[in-house]
């Protein structure tokens, strides 16, 4: 269970897009997409005759969903069409549609009758492209298992954004849906784009080839300013408030540690080629005052099967020390890579000085957000096996077990985390926008915040 399988194949198709973080990327996604359209116009002859348009449903029309849809529409392996959209907020859906129309007008066919709103909108959007369409699932992570299950049951291919679940029952639902997809020959891609970042692929290959000897400790960091919060507006339901601020409620995003550190946790596990067997850690809410549930800092010590460690630190606070990336210490050297590090670097020894540099990525800039969609759509066209479900679920479990350890103050094993029956949002499948969310404020407006030693997580 703790040995990673390397089932996906990847080919490099360098793209001219400027390297940028996901959030920065969204800010200038217009330019990026325009660039990729220009450079990607020479279609391989084999697909030029292909007139089998793949219909796309976008479920979750926030920034990431809009970006993912844009990337799907920018793939060049055959005709694609955005055919349906779903969200719980009309303004989100409309602004997403407007932005996408500006860039991909000819590939958009989402008339009002295929613009779906509400908690069950995902069903209608998926129904309109089923079977054989592509469902892009980019709502808050809590809903991912439900949506993946439904898309697969309707015979659709799935692009699912991280995180893939927020609790172990959710992980099992996605794992099961992934197996079902494989049986039905449906393709499943997961939004851990770092796994498709060519500079990082090259760096990890070097580590696997022994560039810095045995890996002794991996360090995953994400420390920067506070996670944003939009105050509740008059008349807004509590459910709507929490979904709008999904990054701030545990049942929706599975904590900062999972939601924001999953990439760098996953990259460490990729470098190590193993999943951790246990975690212990700590965290708290020392500075944050927003009406939400977020811990503002975390530290988790993970142990790999060979007894080596992954140490993760996350913090979102103003005016504090920060770093965003992974540092890997091997027996003979160091690597600096991961989300936040656009040019992975490998050093001899443990001082990361220019004179100790033994390798750094020198190829063209690479857009892994585009690349992950290129690979996915190519696999659909060519009908090649493509199913990232298992490693995506295990990467999510790394974040979940870390959250469990930090919130409870307990040592949590991989088996304990994976076999947990605790659902963060019981009854979620039937939630409406008027349902009472699992976390409610007290009379002073304070939401429940985990207390190590008291909070139960299994």
């Amino acid at each position: 269970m703790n040995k990673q399988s390397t089932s996906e194949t990847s080919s490099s198709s360098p793209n001219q897009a400027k390297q940028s973080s996901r959030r920065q990327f969204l800010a200038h996604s217009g330019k990026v997409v325009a660039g990729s359209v220009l450079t990607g116009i020479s279609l391989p002859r084999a697909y030029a005759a292909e007139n089998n348009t793949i219909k796309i449903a976008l479920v979750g029309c926030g920034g990431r969903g809009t970006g993912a849809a844009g990337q799907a529409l920018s793939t060049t392996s055959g005709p694609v069409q955005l055919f349906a959209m779903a969200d719980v907020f009309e303004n989100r859906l409309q602004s997403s549609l407007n932005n996408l129309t500006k860039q991909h007008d000819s590939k958009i066919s989402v008339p009002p009758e295929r613009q779906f709103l509400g908690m069950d909108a995902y069903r209608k959007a998926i129904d309109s492209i089923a079977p054989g369409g592509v469902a892009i699932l980019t709502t808050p992570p809590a809903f991912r298992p439900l949506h993946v299950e439904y898309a697969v049951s309707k015979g659709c291919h799935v692009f699912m954004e991280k995180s893939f679940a927020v609790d172990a029952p959710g992980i099992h639902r996605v794992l099961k849906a992934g197996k079902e997809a494989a049986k039905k020959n449906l393709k499943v891609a997961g939004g851990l784009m770092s796994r498709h970042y060519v500079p990082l692929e090259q760096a990890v290959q070097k580590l696997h080839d022994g560039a810095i000897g045995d890996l002794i400790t991996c360090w995953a960091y994400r420390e920067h300013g506070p996670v944003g919060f939009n105050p509740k507006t008059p008349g807004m339901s509590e459910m709507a408030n929490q979904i709008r601020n999904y990054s701030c409620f545990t049942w929706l995003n599975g904590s900062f540690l999972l939601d924001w550190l999953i990439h760098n946790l996953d990259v460490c596990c990729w470098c190590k080629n193993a999943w951790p067997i246990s975690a212990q850690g700590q965290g708290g809410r020392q500075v944050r005052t927003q009406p939400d549930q977020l811990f503002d800092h975390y530290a988790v010590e993970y142990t790999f099967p060979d007894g080596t460690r992954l140490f993760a630190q996350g913090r979102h606070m103003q005016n504090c020390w920060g770093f965003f990336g992974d540092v890997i210490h091997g027996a003979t050297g160091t690597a600096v890579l991961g989300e936040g590090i656009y040019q992975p670097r490998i050093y001899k020894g443990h001082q990361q000085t220019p004179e100790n540099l033994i390798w750094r990525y020198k190829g063209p800039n690479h857009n892994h957000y585009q690349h992950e969609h290129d690979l996915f759509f190519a696999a659909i066209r060519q009908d090649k096996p493509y199913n990232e479900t298992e490693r995506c679920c295990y990467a999510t479990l790394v974040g979940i077990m870390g959250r469990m350890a930090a919130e409870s103050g307990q040592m949590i094993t991989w088996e304990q985390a994976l076999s947990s029956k605790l659902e963060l949002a019981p009854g979620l499948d039937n939630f409406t926008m008027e349902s009472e969310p699992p976390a409610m404020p007290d009379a002073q407006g304070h939401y429940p915040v985990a207390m190590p030693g008291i909070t139960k997580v299994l």
Partner: protein
Amino acid sequence: MKKNSDPKNSPPTNNSTRRDFLKTSTVAASAAFTGTLGLRSGVHAAGSDILRVGMIGCGGRNTGAAAQALTADSGARLVAMCDIFMDRVKEKRQVLKGQKTDQVIVDDDHCFTGFDGYKHVIDSADVVVIANAAKFHPLHAMTAIKAGKHVFVEKPHGIDPVGVKFMQQTAQLAKEKGLSLVSGLHSRYHTGYTETIKRIHDGAIGDVIAIEENFLRSPYRVTKREPDYSELQWQCSTQYHFSWLSGDDVPQSLVHNLDRASWVLHNKVPVKCHGLGGRSSMTNPIYGDVFDHHSLVYEMENGIPIYALCRTTNGCYNEYSSVVMGSKGKADIIRCRISGENPWRWQGKCNPYQIEHDVLFGSIRSGKPVNNGDYMTRSTMVTVMGQISCYTGKEVTWELINKSDFYYPPKPEDCHDGMEPPVKPGPNGSYPVPIPGVTKLI
């Protein structure tokens, strides 16, 4: 690495923590007494056969230290004691009298209280054992050394840059005056740790790649607030829970861990550190103003990282460990075990708390002073830089902490009975706590 989910159920071992140790100290002390008596006879040639011992601080730790001092030297006599609270003095005098009947000769006139009590104890003694609120360790040690007295002083050896630098001056003065200064960083007197670290230095685990330190446990005991206590008295009575007195948990607890880490790395210092921390569960005002968890990452000059976690929270996973990860194996210092290419295990027994006093009194008798000033101040400063990083959220460099003139007010020499404490509870009973990113200390 000792990993007990419930340390209360674990049997006492040779690697027990200080708190475990106190419960079994009587047994251990008498064993050591029998074992070392033979060595001692005929050695104490210098001066009078009687060495007068004074106790500064009458908590559990110093009571243990006094008992070990009396065990170390049959000519030692406990002659004076002080604490902020007279009832603690009287109670501990009784306890020690029960253990060392003939060696405890403290009359009522030599039981002192208040912030100035230490001066009278120093006047009455040849050797002082100091273990009270760590804020006062440098001042009390310096006063004793100035007066020509030998010193055993408990860790940490200061809680802020000013205090640690004062302890450095104390150590220098002790050297100049030929006086012994012994630190309560007992790891350095642990035979098993010494043997383990010697093997690391000899290459048993290859190159050291990283060090992991954990000290996770329940909070320090909260003392009952007596109805007649002033706010100042209450804070002093439960000093571990107030940073102006104790310096919080990085100096208090992780100092042992980080002292071992520094020892492994040939007494080198980190160039910088960054840390997180807060109060997540022990938020009741009875826990004062300290954090209940801290997480630190230090970086050594050669790029080797150390992470160090401490926690004082009930009902959580507990661990006390120092693990050194090498290119050819791993050393678990607390369990005195090396795994990997060169497996090895030390299975002896030792009582480092006793050995440190044996060494102190041996040095006095032989006229060859011992001075732990070097590592005791360096390791304490490493913890102070870590604590300040957790409080401020900033990276703190070794250079910066050594240049800093920060101290937790008031200065120890300005503390006096009846003063207003520097921190007071707000309207809801809670004390103000540091806010990383906002709090500025250096």
